[in-house]
């Protein structure tokens, strides 16, 4: 029994009685015991809860019941997705001891699949950051090199999969928070089309950009998890009612005849040469399998980053106002007036990056500045969506890097602005609400994973997974890439 298997293989073994759900869950718990001190991926562990679910699955198997795809497959959840009765902190002092009274929609779905939940995962505070250094609880270390950051904000979710501390994890992606840590840690991460996965129970950072998505070690497993969590939810007005397919259907039909665009802007300024080489290598691999790759120009995308930081901060400034020390969460000890209660609770409860974004967003929405910042950013948003529409009128998918560099050392990014620049290839996708897959395609001279990003039109996840699987079959999952690259 190995925790390095694909989810479909684990599911087969469970059904065949070759392994019990308890054994499988225990194997991952052992993995957490062995690795988590080094990675810091988990904020809260729920071993007993996971084993209890596993036992239920074993009983069901013994009774010959038909099992859903994720039954007995142990997962873990980013700590901004609420779990009834299990502390949900957003890696913030503000919610350090907060225990939600209800489950997020994705948790309802995973519970109905009888997937054992191993615990809650570390992240940048309120999902604001790109390195998980903004966690108020503890930092996360990249399992590929503990001196380096795992990326962020879903750093714990990426590290847990990379270190085999869970068969899959859920993260959230507002401007790259699934795709960039997936790239840094050498795992597969999907940011689905906006409206595919219900946000009900996801503690909002920027409501119009946030989307929950899965992390796995391989592409097919990722499609299995997304199939389990996608679907219309009447409790989220932005959830889109439609028939959601099984995303594994037709996944191995290849890329022959697919037209894939390569935006030139993303392969020029500011990109590390090795990352560029890795992405071009991925392009070659896809071309070799019959895809047609053409370079395109999308100059408008350079406005995506400033538009993103205005829109996301504006929404965050409003979304995070509810943390005021009155009803739940952190409350300052020392106050006389209502204003002092608010000011001190928020000053003491939030970290520096969160406060920076609240200030930025409040400013952008202030009367007299609204038109110059927020309104203009919304106009840019419309233009960017239009440019993507134009590209997708001619191409099936877009291939691009995920981040300009591979994982950097902790503390290497001195300023917030420097950190924000790292989101340049991921934020346009959120601005346009598109689906995008991040997956390892190569490694650099330090042995660190290089990620490739496959972007498609709305609801093209099946096609993206098809191309992803084709690329994975050409270059291998990161284990294989690492093994092959051992000579470098």
């Amino acid at each position, binding site marked *: 029994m190995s925790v390095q298997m694909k989810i479909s293989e684990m599911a087969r073994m469970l059904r065949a009685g070759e392994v019990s759900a308890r054994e499988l869950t225990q194997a991952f718990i052992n993995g957490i015991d062995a690795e988590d001190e080094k990675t810091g991926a988990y904020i809260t562990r729920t071993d007993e809860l996971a084993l209890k679910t596993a036992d239920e699955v074993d009983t069901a198997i013994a009774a010959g019941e038909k099992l859903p795809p994720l039954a007995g497959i142990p997962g873990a959840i980013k700590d901004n997705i*609420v779990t009834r009765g299990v502390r949900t902190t957003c890696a913030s002092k503000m919610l350090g001891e907060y225990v939600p009274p209800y489950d*997020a929609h994705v948790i309802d779905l995973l519970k109905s699949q009888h997937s054992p939940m191993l615990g809650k995962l570390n992240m940048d505070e309120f999902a604001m950051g790109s390195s998980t250094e903004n966690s108020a609880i503890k930092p996360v270390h990249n399992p590929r090199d503990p001196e380096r950051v795992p990326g962020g904000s879903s750093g714990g979710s990426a590290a847990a999969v990379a270190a085999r501390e869970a068969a899959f994890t859920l993260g959230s992606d507002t401007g790259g928070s699934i795709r960039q840590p997936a790239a840094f840690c050498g795992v597969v991460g999907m940011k689905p089309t906006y409206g595919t996965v219900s946000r009900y129970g996801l503690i909002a950072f920027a409501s119009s950009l946030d989307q929950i998505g899965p992390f796995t070690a391989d592409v097919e497993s990722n499609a299995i998890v997304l199939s389990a969590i996608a679907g219309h939810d009447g409790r989220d007005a932005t959830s889109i009612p439609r028939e959601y397919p099984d995303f594994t259907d037709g996944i191995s039909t290849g890329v022959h005849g697919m037209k894939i665009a390569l935006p030139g802007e993303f392969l020029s300024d500011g990109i590390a040469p090795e990352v560029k080489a890795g992405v071009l290598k991925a392009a070659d691999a896809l071309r070799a399998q019959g895809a047609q790759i053409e370079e395109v120009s999308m100059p408008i995308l350079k406005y995506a980053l400033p538009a993103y930081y205005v829109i996301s901060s504006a929404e965050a400034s409003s979304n995070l*106002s509810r943390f*005021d020390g009155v009803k739940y969460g952190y409350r300052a000890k020392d106050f006389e007036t209502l204003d002092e209660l608010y000011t001190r609770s928020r000053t003491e409860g939030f970290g520096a990056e969160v406060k920076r974004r609240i200030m930025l967003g409040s400013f952008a929405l202030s009367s007299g500045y609204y038109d110059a910042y927020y309104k203009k950013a919304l106009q840019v948003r419309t233009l960017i969506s239009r440019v993507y529409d134009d590209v997708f009128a001619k191409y099936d998918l877009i291939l691009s890097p995920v981040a300009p560099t591979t994982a950097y050392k902790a503390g290497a990014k001195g300023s917030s602005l420097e950190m924000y620049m790292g989101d340049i290839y991921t934020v346009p996708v959120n601005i346009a609400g598109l689906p995008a897959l991040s997956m390892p395609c190569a490694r650099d001279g330090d042995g660190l994973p290089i990620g490739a990003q496959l972007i498609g039109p709305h609801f093209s996840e099946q096609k993206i997974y098809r191309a992803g699987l084709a690329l994975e079959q050409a270059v291998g999952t990161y284990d294989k890439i690492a093994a092959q690259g051992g000579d470098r």
Partner: protein
Amino acid sequence: MSEMYEAVIGLEIHMELNTKSKIFCSCPTTFGAAPNTQCCPVCCGLPGTLPVLNKQVVEKAARFGMAAHCEIATLSKQDRKNYFYPDLPKAYQISQYDMPLCKGGYVDIVADGEKTRVRLNRIHIEEDAGKLIHVEGKGTLVDFNRCGVPLIEIVTEPDIRTAAQAVALLQKLRAMALYVGASEAAMEKGQMRCDVNLSVHKIGEPYGTRTEMKNLNSFTSVTRAIDVEYKRQVAAVEAGTPIVQETRRFDAESGRTYSMRSKENDSDYRYFPDPDLPPIHIGVEQLNALRDSIPRLPDERAAQYMSNFGLSAQEAERVVARRDMADAFEETAKLLSSGAKPRTAAVLLSDAYAQAQADGLKYDAMDTAKAAHVCELVDSGAISHASAREIILALMKGDIDVDGYVKSHAMSQISDMAAIEDAVKAVIAESAELVERVRAGKLSAINALVGLSMKRMAGRGNARIIHEVIERILQL
């Protein structure tokens, strides 16, 4: 001196819609439940929760807007109004900023016998906040039951000049809400609350600086607040003190208004479109269906009653105040024998309104054939108007035999000339002062003499005959 100044008044009215569930979740909206028993993670704004708009809110608000002649926007949106207050758990209120559901429109009112058109600026939908309860020694508690109760905010243009017009408008809005089934709009239950914007100016001169008085919750407080603030502003202008644009609180106890905050200290609400809620689209078909579902409205009915039954504007306005009353009036008028006056039915039913309202009685519970019989008894002089009003109320409470009721309650009216003359003479002998005023030409004093005579006859005298007898004896 102050007669030279005219008050210029605009109202902002908050009205609770009578949907079964709240605007963004499925919690009930029942009034008066124990604190924090009608709330859920969504209306308490717990982290991770999302609002989903209750379609009924849009429909009811649109129907009300149609009744007020508004243009209903086929595309509107919801915005966040950001501010911190403990009764607002999300620290923002979901409202509508620059694209409201209903635009323009007007409401015609009758006050002091005069008809006025009050233009509306807009009507938008929004959520209510919770309630703070200050407990001596314990501090302040929050009740979230009211959080998320759906409201419409009706904003008028500054077309109102008097307190009577303001009250007439509120009464008319209430009638409209009842007709279209959008709200009970009972001020005493907090279902309708009113902010008053008021300035003063000399006629022919530009408008003055306005002040706003928030959260007035009864007709009396609206009337008093307007009177008091008008006088304060006139005095200030006369004294040469500038009026400051500010929010003022009307204190019912002291009968004064106090400054709360000036415009400069107003918070910036940082309105922006709520990203959790898609825009509200209403198709032409849906608009037509909503329009078709609107019953004949008070204005249309009042106009019909005036031309068909000869009611005055005031009488017509009164009888259309509630839909069940107007319906009952139409039924009763149809059943009257020839010669009986529909006007009697209108006046009788409207006179019973205040009591019916207080006792929670409904006009549709009344047998209209029997009501018609009561009207005929009044017109023939068999019973007094006061007795008839009592019987109408009794008919709303349950089925009764009208003639039997008249007999058992000794209501048959005394038209016997000798008895009436005795009563009138006695009253005239006791009321030298009133008689003096009648002789001096104050004809309204006659009504007082009629009233006293009626009282002496235990309410059973025939008012018309009493009136004639008084005129004859005083040789008017």
